[in-house]
């Protein structure tokens, strides 16, 4: 473990009554640095909070905001649950996939876009919902997606993790 990583880990542990509570924030920190949760990060995390790398894997693979391999800078997640489906999510999904030339769980060749279909984003009132990094976009139609895409061409991507 690098000294910086260790220092950050200890700082995170100090915030909680239980060291294990620091596991997810620490993985988020590692992901910010490496682009994804590396095997080394899982080993470091386990050592830091006192669990096995296997237990870290179990947790890291559970959450959709933790990635086990390198993904695009723009992370696009579209809801595939009932309310969004009823309001045109299926059409939106096929449009995005065609437009970006990638499928579910894939990253575009230029490394810019990552696309994923996820379970309910808890925005049923304004379905279909699309999550771009940490930002929600509501009532997304294919045309609205084109506009978003255009905006992203010039905007630097939002951080994939919440700021401190």
């Amino acid at each position, binding site marked *: 473990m690098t000294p910086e990583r260790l220092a950050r880990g200890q700082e995170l542990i100090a915030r909680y009554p239980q060291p294990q509570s620091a596991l997810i924030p620490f993985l988020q920190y590692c992901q910010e640095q490496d682009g994804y949760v590396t*095997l080394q990060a899982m080993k470091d995390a386990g050592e830091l909070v006192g669990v*096995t790398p296997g237990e870290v*894997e179990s947790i890291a693979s559970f959450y959709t905001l933790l990635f086990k391999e390198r993904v695009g800078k723009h992370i696009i997640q579209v809801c595939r649950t009932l309310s969004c489906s009823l309001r045109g999510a299926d059409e939106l999904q096929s449009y995005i996939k065609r437009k970006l030339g990638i499928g579910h769980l894939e990253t575009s060749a230029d490394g810019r876009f990552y696309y994923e279909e996820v379970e309910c984003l808890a925005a049923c009132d304004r379905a279909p919902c699309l999550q771009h990094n940490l930002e929600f976009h509501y009532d997304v139609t294919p045309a609205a997606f084109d506009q978003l895409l255009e905006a992203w061409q010039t905007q630097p991507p939002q951080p994939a993790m919440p700021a401190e």
Partner: protein
Amino acid sequence: MVKLLIDGQEVTVPDGTLVVEAAKELGTQIPVYCYHPKMDPAGLCRICLVEIEKIPKLQIACATRVTEGMVVHTMSPKVAEARRGVLEFLLLNHPLDCPICDKGGECDLQDFTMEYGPGASRLTEPKLHKPKRVDLGPTIVLDEERCILCRRCTRFDDEIAQERNLVVVERGHSSLIGTVDGGDYESYFSGNTTEICPVGALTSKAYRFRARPWDLGHADSVCTQCSVGCNYRVDTRFGKIMRTFTRENPAVDGGWICDRGRYTFNYLYESARVRQPLIRRDRELERATLSEALAVTAEKLGAAAAAGRVGVIGGGRLSDEEAFALQRFAREVLRTNNIDHRARLQKYASPARFGARLTDIDDADLILVFGAVTPEQAPILDLRIRRAVARHGARLVFVGPFKPELAVPFDYVEYTTGAIGDLMEALASGVARGVPDGAPFVAELSKALSDAGKIVAVHNGRNVVAATALERLVETLRGNDKSAGILVVGSQGNARGAEAAGCVPNLGPGYAPVSNPGLTTTEMLQAAAAGKLDALFIVGANPALTFPDGGLARKALETVPFLAVSDQLLTETASFADVVFAAASQFEKRGHVTNLEGRRQAFAQAIEAPVHVAADAAILAGLANAMGRIDVLFDDPDWLFSRLEMAEQAAGTKEPLPRPKLDSAAAPQAEALDAQRKTFAVIPVPKLYAGGGAAAHDPGLEPMRPQPRAIFSEDDALLLGIADGRIVTLAGRNGSITVPARIDARTPAGSVLVTADMPDAPVNRLLDASGTGRVTVTPAEARREVTA
């Protein structure tokens, strides 16, 4: 106690009992998948739903505890409907490949579906497909499609093994059983997960596609790979062993066996197996008949015995009956007390007094392990320690020359091999006087011993000074109204049985002292090397690899004019022999073995021995007959067992048991560190899958076999200028070995940890008879690049 009604029948069970267990009392089987009596309830699979009056919804019997006056229905129409529904969901994406599934015939999914399930699926969509052949590691293949995610396996790895490497990854319907980054699931206990898997998801590589359960024959056997003596069942087909399966004995194994025990049987079918007696003619070992081998051996042993120049080594691999026969052969036929089963560092196999039971570990407050590396030498004993520490809050103190990797937290006290006696003395007097003194950890440990209510000490039987001090310590503790006892981990499966049957130079069966003690193994080897013995007979022992002073062992085997060896495999020792007898394995005979706590257990014969292979009892009886002593030995296990019991009764030995004779090499001396680091002290490290016999030749163990290593501390590696992985040559008193170096901060300064009992790099080239040695370390020349 709580009284309740289950299906109209009244039952009274202790408070806190689960409904599923209460039903068992009445013989009512409630179907379960995720529930396992050895593990905490998980409530995952829902198949155990039952109707409880006054509770509107159905409840899971595996996680509901009984209450007074509870009325439970396990077979009502509501329950039947719920079960049918649960099964329909569990089978929704199940591949229904029962005809090619190893579990077919003993599968809970199959059985409960037959009993409670729907006849057909209503799913019209295509089934969800998942990976069908996931290589989970050296022992297991996982079929994700068959998995119902009951998590018995991951909970076993967590709650029982305390290792937590096998986990559930992903979530929801994507959930899979897995490991970190898809790596190997490596555990000494991995095979148990294939047994507790209620479906055909976890399959054993050794048993995959080999047989159907209904075609198997069964024999109740006892594992002899270590001295714990776990009970298991040997499953056979067409006279060959297909697999082994747990056969729970709560007092010994608690229903689990380790992978070394589970998978060590395919060596029987390997080319190294001695399938016919061999006689050395013109320097080569050639095949011979049993009668030829008996005749040659009888003549040579007879002549050597007449001159009083004969020795017998062995017993720890034999059954109790055969160990008795071996000492009787030595004493009655060869007329010598030169018999010893100890061909390793271990000097005695039983505590002279205050013996503990394995179950004493379960509720101990303090477990003191010294010298024995329990996960490597007695895995199922280690499993008990893990549970006691993790679940019952026992404190584990490990005293040894290096800090081992243990699955549960422990306190480590470093001692050099020679100093452990002093430590035990200090503890014994500290506790006896009630005023602990000496080093801080001695004071602290003395206090911990005084505070604990129940103490179990686990020893490796190598250091008699320490053992005697330990007995004094336990005596004091018992005097203070504490429960305390000692377990000695044996070096061979039946070391304790051999000791009790009289395979030691000064004690006959039942520890009856003999008038004229013979030579110990060390003394026999010294005498043979000096040309003072005419013949050696070695039965089921491999001193060339396992005797600490390998130089002495090899010189003795080379020098002795006649060497007869009886073994299952052509071992390092057998390759020196003039006659090799083809001995039956434990699976090919019946008898008893005695485990480390002194429990004598019967094992049944599972398969027939190959045509020219004979049980050691038959070989010994044959030799006695060939030497004209037709009334001394018979090969019938029942006859031998009755004679052994009679001899034990006649001896009537009471505790404290007399100690087996020791030789001058017995006590390792404390050695000063070489401050210059010109030489390093060698510490042999036992490994579960190391060894020269079955372990070296069994193809099932091949993927688990360790690589020999020399492990240094960081500072010493820096001083030597070696990096991790660098090949080094260790040169000692009897030669050298060349192995890769490893760096581990836990290695004591000035020492090198060397994997013990590795045929390619025998550590016994570096040691003396007391098991200590010093080596010089030379890094190998950096290899030149070979270009094509």
